């Protein structure tokens, strides 16, 4: 700790910071542009100049850039010094020489960092009378709008895109005052994290194109915390609404999870909520004739009818969902009883998830948060394709590879915030990152070593690494020489690290890779390291559902086919994505009544006798448990229109309707508010006991008040409904959370899940996050980053996994068909968002060129693949990284019904080879 003196007042600061961060951390307003808490200092914009004095006798001082000056003990500076103020105003004046005065029509207006800094410095009158330079803008694809005239050349976009996120196709061109930040030519920004440019850009050069299509000023948005539903990482987002539609998703800082950044799937996938394929009303199919379409019905009648059906049922099967909240799943379980509650996932997935949970429960190694992953100094990935399955984790690993080389930076006494110097010192030095899997992406360019092999061989590599590290862990005989050498390198790198991280996942369907990852981590633990494990799971609440437990989907099928039950309730789950069509058809055919609760039309919803329109995440309150076992709360941003209601509420109503004739008020039927759902969830399984702690209950008040979802400047409240009524209806009352659907309420320091939007006096942009942190870049004040439900076993030496698979052997007629996840397309919900849909590639089959030749295929040829009772049109890709004897199938919506991995006879399955497509 150091004491610095700012304008004759003493402040205690961390001497490892620069003066800018130190000042911001104390709420002192120093304007800046090129600095960013996650990207350090480069000293380009000169906006953060302050006066520094040698000592208390020095009256002259000199201007220094606070971002480039260490906060050394005794440093004496002035922010208010007239010369420094005048200089900072001049910097704005220079930036404004070419900046268009288009704030009223600029999407950034009202949350523009440049506006904030301009007001902060006091620059008002334009003295330059010369023409402004103009640029041509580029089409950057469906996510980002480009308006180069607004650019103030802070270089943050290229620093973020290239240096932080590993992108290649955005750059700075030209020099002097003719700089251009864009692509070499028009075209979609390729990087999976391009959306962060919207928040990185201090002004309106890069703006959210999806938001533009239904634009609303920040102050007119009603907002609340959301948890991204599009993968298992649980990134925190702020979801915002106006006029009953979801308008945008922005990053919500959580120091333990996503920090400052989201992936594009998470940021732009939200529009499924506004989809015209939304189920908006209750549909009932008259009993007895399933050929007839379901008809709209009013809610009371529908519930009465559903209640009748449930009472008449000879056994009810409840099928839960890994994309539904814990509370909704618990509600279903309560309604049907634990014995009849099924997880709605297949046996293999359930097995993998339970293995993972047991590893985290019984082993000594904890799971890694994304923040932990960024801090890891050596990483081994066994299996998952992070860029496509858990993108934000891949972004974290791009930072982790700087950890080990940072030792050199420390030796050179370069402060870690001095990004310009750090990059010069690091150059291309990268810490260990080993990627083993079967799909190559650009991410592999950052790997120390890449190993492309079938899942069994990836597992063998992992087991071998564990055996080499631990020497007590089982070793792998008959390893290839290549794998043996790689094993040595990996083992060496991991044992030289202090915080190694081992990552595996469920996507390859391989139990062995998961077990191998555990062996590696446990072996490192025995060496006195502080390893972490991270498992990439299929969906947003896969971990929560697994903690809750329950049978598999096929157990549910059996229950109906064996006549143990005749009624099915499906919660937010399209079973046709999880089992083959014939099986699911037979299941629904056999069931007397099918009740489906979901938000979007899909084949399962089409089979419903009673279809209940479910609220999506931003329309409901709920809890997800992410892949590290962190339970996080999301909040209803707005009340959905019409009959749409939260799934847990439908289930409560169903339970109520079912028990209407009886006096029973037990279980879900007795729930009144979301807090009841949370309480029930906390008792549903021992490990869920702490879900009540992740956020304050609905009764939480500050100074006796609820907390508003709307900004103080929310406009038009009295006229929003003027086309319907001349009166201003009272705002809806929220009994489920401490939040209100209003502008009124307590404004001040809030527990982090209850913050509607980050906003502070003088800080209208997302940069206002600084003002919510005690130390810039550190945790939020009153941060409630979720509760980790799984604790590693203390001083427990678990038994090694010993089921080492045999080496993968290509078969003569069969290929192992493996899933290729796609960041755009593999996730069910985001794929329904138009902007994401634009980025989904045509389905393809990836083959090793030698296998392609064996099959007599040509690259880029079009084939029909008949498989599991359906035919798919696919393009053929030759990819040397695809292991011989395997074939990769891109998981995009057209092939969402395919269940892989599985063995397939491609000689038989490939029915026709279409004309060779033009290259």
């Amino acid at each position, binding site marked *: 700790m150091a004491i610095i003196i700012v304008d004759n007042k003493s402040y205690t600061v961390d001497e490892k910071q620069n003066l800018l961060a130190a000042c911001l951390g104390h709420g002192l307003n120093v304007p800046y542009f090129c600095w960013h808490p996650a990207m350090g200092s480069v000293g380009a914009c000169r*906006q953060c100049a302050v006066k520094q004095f040698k000592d208390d006798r020095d009256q002259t001082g000199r201007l220094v850039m606070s971002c480039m000056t260490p906060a050394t003990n005794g440093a004496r500076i002035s922010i208010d010094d007239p010369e420094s103020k005048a200089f900072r105003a*001049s*910097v704005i004046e220079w930036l404004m020489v070419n900046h268009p005065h288009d704030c009223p029509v600029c999407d950034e207006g009202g949350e523009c960092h440049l506006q904030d800094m301009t007001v902060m410095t006091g620059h008002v009158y334009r*003295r330059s009378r010369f023409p402004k330079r103009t640029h041509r803008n580029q089409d950057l694809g469906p996510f980002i709008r480009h308006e180069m005239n607004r650019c103030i050349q802070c270089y943050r976009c290229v620093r973020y895109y290239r240096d932080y996120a590993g992108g290649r196709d955005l750059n700075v061109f030209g020099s*002097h005052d003719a*700089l251009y930040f864009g692509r070499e030519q028009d075209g979609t920004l390729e990087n999976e994290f391009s959306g962060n440019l919207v928040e990185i850009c201090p002004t309106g050069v890069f703006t959210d194109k999806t938001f533009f299509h239904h634009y609303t000023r920040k102050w007119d948005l009603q907002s609340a915390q959301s948890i991204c539903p599009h993968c298992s990482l649980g990134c925190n987002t702020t979801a915002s609404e106006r006029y009953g539609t979801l308008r945008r998703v922005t990053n919500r800082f959580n120091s333990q999870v996503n920090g400052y950044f989201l992936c594009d799937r998470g940021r732009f996938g939200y529009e499924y909520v506004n989809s015209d394929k939304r189920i908006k009303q209750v549909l009932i199919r008259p009993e007895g004739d399933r050929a007839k379409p379901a008809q709209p019905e009013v809610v009371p009648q529908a519930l009465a009818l559903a209640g009748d059906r449930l009472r008449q049922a000879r056994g009810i099967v409840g099928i839960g969902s890994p994309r539904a909240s814990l509370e909704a799943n618990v509600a279903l379980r309560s309604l049907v009883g634990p014995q009849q509650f099924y997880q709605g996932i297949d046996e293999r997935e359930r097995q993998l998830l339970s293995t993972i949970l047991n590893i985290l429960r019984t082993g000594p190694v904890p799971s890694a948060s994304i923040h932990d992953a960024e801090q890891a100094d050596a990483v081994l990935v066994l299996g998952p394709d992070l860029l496509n399955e858990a993108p934000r984790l891949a972004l974290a690993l791009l930072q982790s590879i700087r950890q080990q080389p940072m030792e050199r930076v420390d030796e*050179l006494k370069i402060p870690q915030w*001095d990004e310009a110097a750090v990059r*010069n010192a690091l150059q291309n030095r990268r810490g260990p990152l080993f990627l083993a899997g079967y799909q190559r992406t650009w991410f592999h360019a950052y790997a120390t070593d890449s190993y492309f092999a079938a899942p069994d061989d990836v597992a063998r590599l992992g087991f071998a690494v564990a055996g080499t590290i631990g020497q007590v862990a089982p070793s792998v005989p008959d390893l290839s020489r290549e794998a043996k050498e790689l094993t040595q390198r990996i083992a060496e790198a991991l044992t030289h690290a202090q915080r190694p991280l081992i990552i595996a996942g469920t996507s390859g369907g391989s139990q062995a890779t998961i077990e191998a990852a555990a062996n590696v981590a446990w072996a490192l633990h025995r060496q006195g390291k502080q390893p972490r494990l991270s498992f990439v799971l299929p969906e947003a609440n896969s971990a929560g559902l697994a903690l809750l437990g329950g049978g598999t989907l096929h157990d549910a099928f059996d229950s109906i086919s064996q006549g143990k039950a005749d009624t099915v309730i499906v919660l937010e789950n399209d079973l046709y994505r999880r089992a083959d069509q014939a099986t699911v058809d037979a299941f629904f055919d056999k069931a007397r009544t099918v009740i489906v609760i979901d938000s979007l039309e899909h084949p399962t919803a089409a089979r419903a006798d009673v279809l209940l329109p479910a609220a999506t995440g931003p329309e409901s309150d709920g809890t997800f448990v992410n892949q590290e076992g962190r339970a996080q709360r999301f909040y209803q941003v707005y009340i959905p229109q019409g009959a749409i209601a939260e799934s847990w509420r439908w289930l409560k109503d169903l339970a109520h309707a079912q028990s209407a004739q009886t006096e029973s008020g037990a279980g879900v039927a007795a729930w009144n508010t979301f807090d009841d759902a949370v309480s029930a969830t906390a008792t549903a399984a021992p490990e869920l006991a702490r879900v009540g702690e992740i956020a304050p209950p609905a009764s939480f008040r500050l100074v006796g008040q609820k907390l508003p979802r709307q900004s103080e400047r929310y406009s038009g409240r009295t006229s929003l409904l003027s086309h319907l009524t001349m009166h201003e209806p009272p705002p809806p009352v929220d009994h489920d959370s401490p939040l209100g659907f209003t502008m009124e309420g307590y404004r001040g320091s809030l527990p982090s899940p209850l913050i509607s939007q980050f906003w502070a006096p003088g800080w209208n942009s997302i940069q206002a996050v600084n003002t919510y942190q005690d130390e810039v870049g550190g945790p939020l004040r009153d941060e409630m980053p979720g509760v980790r439900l799984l604790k590693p076993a203390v001083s427990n030496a678990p038994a090694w996994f010993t089921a080492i698979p045999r080496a993968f052997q290509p078969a003569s007629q069969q290929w192992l068909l493996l899933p290729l996840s796609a960041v755009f397309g593999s996730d069910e919900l985001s794929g329904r968002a138009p902007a994401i849909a634009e980025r989904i590639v045509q389905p393809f089959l990836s083959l090793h060129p030698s296998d392609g030749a064996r099959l007599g295929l040509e690259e880029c040829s079009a084939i029909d693949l008949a498989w599991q009772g359906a035919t798919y049109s696919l393009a053929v890709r030759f990819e040397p990284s695809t292991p011989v004897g395997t074939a990769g199938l891109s998981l995009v919506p057209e092939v969402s019904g395919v269940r892989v991995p599985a063995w397939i006879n491609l000689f038989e399955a490939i029915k026709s080879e279409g004309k060779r497509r033009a290259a």
Partner: protein
Amino acid sequence: MNIERPLTQHLHPDGSPRFLREYVAAGGYRSLRRLGTELTHKDVQRLVGESGLRGRGGGGFPTATKWSFVPMGPDVSKPKYIVANGDEMEPGTFKDRILMEGDPHGLVEGMIMAGYALDAEVGYIFLRGEYHLSAQRLNQAIEEAYAAGYLGKPLPGTAFRFDLHLHSSAGRYICGEETALINALEGKRAVPRAKPPFPQTVGLWGQPTIVQNVETLYNIPHIINHGAEWYHRLSRTKDGGTKIYGISGRVTNPGWWELPFGTTARELLEQYAGGMADGVRFRGLLPGGISTSFMVEEHLDLPLDFSSFPPEVGRLGTGTMIILDDQTCPVGFVLNLERFFARESCGWCTPCREGLPWVAKLLMAFEEGRATHDDLSLLEMHTKWLAPGHTFCGLAPGAMAPLQSALRYFREDFERHITTGGCPWSKQSAQQRVLV
């Protein structure tokens, strides 16, 4: 020993090059023969220190002091680099070109010697892109030096081996700034780096690096061969050695001369350049490139070296001066400079990137008769704000040196542009005034 012009005495008057045979015959590469136990790298460092050699690129930083920050010893990070800064883009400056074209081996020898002194095994010559002839001749010299074993092999009596590469710049004035030069050499945008860390510890590819002006490097073998005392005797001041001075502008005999360090501008102008050309009178001069301040009549007797200039006169720079005469508009003269600076700004930091074009446009307004008295204050604002430390590197402060001094010495000329509504030197604007 009576060598007065060590750098240029052997240059052919016709500008043709001296290659290996001729160079060796005249004593070239002699300095390398003593390397080893007779002359350790510490000895070379000490000799250069005693000689008082100061950087000839314009900064005048003591070479030995610069070297002293390079980490030495067996445990330091390797490789270390020596980079010759041959990006001679300073307008009016052509001294390095004379040396490289006429005597390419002198640079090779100087670099080997500097490399030996610092135990740096790889050298790069970063050459101005337009210097095609220098590139040709240096490449031939490098080839010859490899063939003769001066490069690429351990030098006799030592384990030291030096490799040398030539890189022709893609252009940009900013590449003369040593850290921008390093970025350019790495294939990155030619943008300066923040200091600290200095290149001596974190330089080319993150390794310890010395960037040295070409003329400086030419001095080193002579210091080794003849000693520090001799070197001091060459000079009239406490900065050792000779200096290649040059004069361009309307003088009788423009050119370059290797003279004792500390020669005055008046001597140069009158004795060597033959005085002002017929019909023009002296008004001022920029002593060394365009990022130095104007000197006027009263400064002509100052010794041209790194230690004799009072602060208000500024700095010597490269010692190759440009003369302003009375038939040339000082505002137009400065406009020409500021346009150059605005165009050559790398675009990294705000004051330089946005301020210099504004300055150039303001000066244009003066020339076109559209300037106001407020514009004078705007120019002055820029001379105040574009100061060392305020901007990322020295380019913008350098750009302000001629402007600020012009506003001091030629202020009435600026004001005449305002009051007469145009440039008093311009026939065109005189006609326009008549028309108005």
